């Protein structure tokens, strides 16, 4: 909650980004809120598109509608071990060249079916690969998929409007026939 406030005030001050010198002394924008990751606004937007391909909008909102990219960055920045963070960052940086190789274009230029195909291919990169960038792309995508699922299912939208979470789950019944539970199908 504090971070959201901090982010808001940062955004007012800097337009969401700050300028820091990079290794080659050129200046590039880095999102200050995710200090362990060194993510640029362009990469944040790419991540949003990837998340939105993993869980797209349909009858219900999709990942980007819910700003799941911000949740992913918070979780990777704060809760993932340093090796995972490094893989995530390298994989994110390498993702557009991976997309060009597999789909012929930068990710944002692809049609949605082509986008799905690129991500599916990235997720299925074999464990035996020795290409460091390939490894990082796979790791980046699998972390992204995991947090996209968590962020979506545990979003305020899903937990209040679609599948309301109840702080009081009701008294215990230890012998319920599965067939007696009526489950209305939710269309995505």
């Amino acid at each position, binding site marked *: 909650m504090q971070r959201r406030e901090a982010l808001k005030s940062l955004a007012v001050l800097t337009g969401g980004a700050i300028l820091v010198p990079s290794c080659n002394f050129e200046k590039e924008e880095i999102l200050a809120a995710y200090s362990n990751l060194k993510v640029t606004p362009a990469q944040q937007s790419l991540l949003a598109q990837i998340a939105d391909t993993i869980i797209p909008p*349909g009858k219900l909102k999709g990942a980007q509608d819910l700003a799941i990219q911000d949740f992913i960055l*918070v979780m990777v920045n*704060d*809760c993932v071990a340093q090796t995972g963070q490094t893989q995530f960052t390298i994989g994110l940086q390498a993702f557009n060249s991976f997309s060009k190789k597999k789909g012929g274009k930068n990710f944002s230029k692809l049609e949605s079916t082509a986008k799905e195909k690129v991500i599916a291919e990235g997720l299925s990169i074999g464990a035996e690969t020795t290409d460091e960038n390939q490894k990082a792309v796979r790791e980046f995508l699998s972390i992204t998929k995991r947090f996209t*699922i968590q962020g979506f299912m545990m979003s305020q939208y899903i937990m209040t409007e679609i599948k309301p979470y109840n702080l009081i789950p009701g008294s*215990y019944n*230890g012998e*319920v026939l599965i067939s007696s*539970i009526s489950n209305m199908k939710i269309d*995505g």
Partner: protein
Amino acid sequence: MANFNIDATQQRTFQAIVIGSGLSGSWAAKELCEHGVKTLVIERGREVKHLRDYPTTNMLPFEFEHRGQLTKQIEEENPVVSKCYAFREDAMHFFVKDKEHPYIQEKPFDWIRGYQVGGKSLLWARQVQRWSDFDFEGPARDGFAIDWPIRYNDIAPWYSHVEKFAGVSGNKDGLPNLPDGEFLPGFELNIVEKYFQEQLKKHYGDSRHMILARCAHITGNLEYYKQQGRLQCQSRNLCQRGCPFGGYFSANASTLPWAERTGNLTMRTDAVVHSIIYDEAKGKATGVRMVDANTKQTEEYFADVIFVNAAALNTNLILLNSTSNRFPNGLGNDNGLLGKYVAFHNYRAGISAEYEGFADYTTQGGRPTSGYFPRFRNLHKQETDFLRGYAAGFSAGKYNYADQSGIGLSLKEQLLNPSKYGNWTVGSHMMGETIPKESNLVTLSKNEKDAWGIPLLSVHVEYDDNDEKMVKDYQEQMTEMFEKAGFTNIRVRDDHRAPGLDIHEMGGVRMGKDPKTSLLNKNHQLHACANVYVTDGACMTSTSTQNPSLTYMAFAARAAHHAMKNQRWGKI
């Protein structure tokens, strides 16, 4: 000025002082205040008022920035407390952080603490099983530690007293080794747990039982608990956040507000007790020296009787630090045994498995407890090559989960419509009795002090061969029982956790009949300083296997009544 000083001393004088506002201290305070005794409760931590100070209690999962998870930074800064299952984003504000209160681990020891009004009573697992004479007679029968100076009959009425007020849910099981109490309706065991009960009966007759664990939750007699402002447990299973219904027993929801209502309670929070003041001329303790946690100023408070309920190891620390000409090695420590014979519960081993039966069934709703195995090993006679035995938790569950394969709309629909059920999963964890030994002890650091000028506690507690054998026996016996019940994919574990993570550390100020071999008498008074009572985990002569909190509460109530009779106080 003189008058001012006299007034100040009068204002600082009470009939009783209770050090510690947690589970046992709050019980002493409640009994004393209820009977008209002017009581000061000193708490080293901050105020935590029921309802007002439970900031996360009604938060929804998405309101936690990390959805409940700890950040790497918090884990790295808190290698000890991060190991505790309840130290998560929703309740970490009720735990002591590693850096705030350092201690010395001569051997690995995970000391889990809650420094606030209510102490760990906000965080406990709420399991309340009575001891029986199979437990109290253990040391005498099996020749370890020393004989307890009391038996079940001494404590049984106090168990009843505490159970009624706290609210305990359970079934009357009629087991001599786990006596029945004053129970509110029990929660339900599920279909697989009931099946396992029947299997035990079939294969072991009357020698092994798995029952519904008794837990300190309100499930009935609702009008009675309304007097405390407490309501029926709603099975939220978010207890560690503090309960807005007061559905489980905590000092904050129950005993402390009850004591406060009498007008006889004074609370002094943010006050770190340095030592107990001993008056040689009077031959008794006269008060307590404390350091304000924030200003670091020293203050003294005075009383006729002092209850030390600082939580087991901190009670040891305070007594060890209470030195005088008469007691150069700590208050009441004539025999040099203060701080020694510390013991705990061995939680290292566990087992999990699956059950393919009852595939058409699942469970719904929540339940704040589970199944429980009372000790069956060496119960009636010695039958193994190790002493004593273990209790165990037991539960079965079934989970509905979603297919997470693929991406895109198909994944989205899979997630929204979880359709898969696995087999029933069954699991258990051990709660082993450990044997108190002189070599398992706590001492005061000679040169390191905390921010309040109090020596750091140095902990030297480790497992022994008896514990190793017991881990193995638990794994073997549970495997055998699981196999006989037809469970599959059985996996045993030994997580080699350090002592302490059980949060059942006990002893150091043990009770006994003989002042040469014990610190406390049968009424919880220090043999050598009779107006000081110890009724928290420090008083334990042996540990048995039951979750100990209920016993501390009963001890505290019993000792408070002893003090009142002795002092001819109150309306008893």
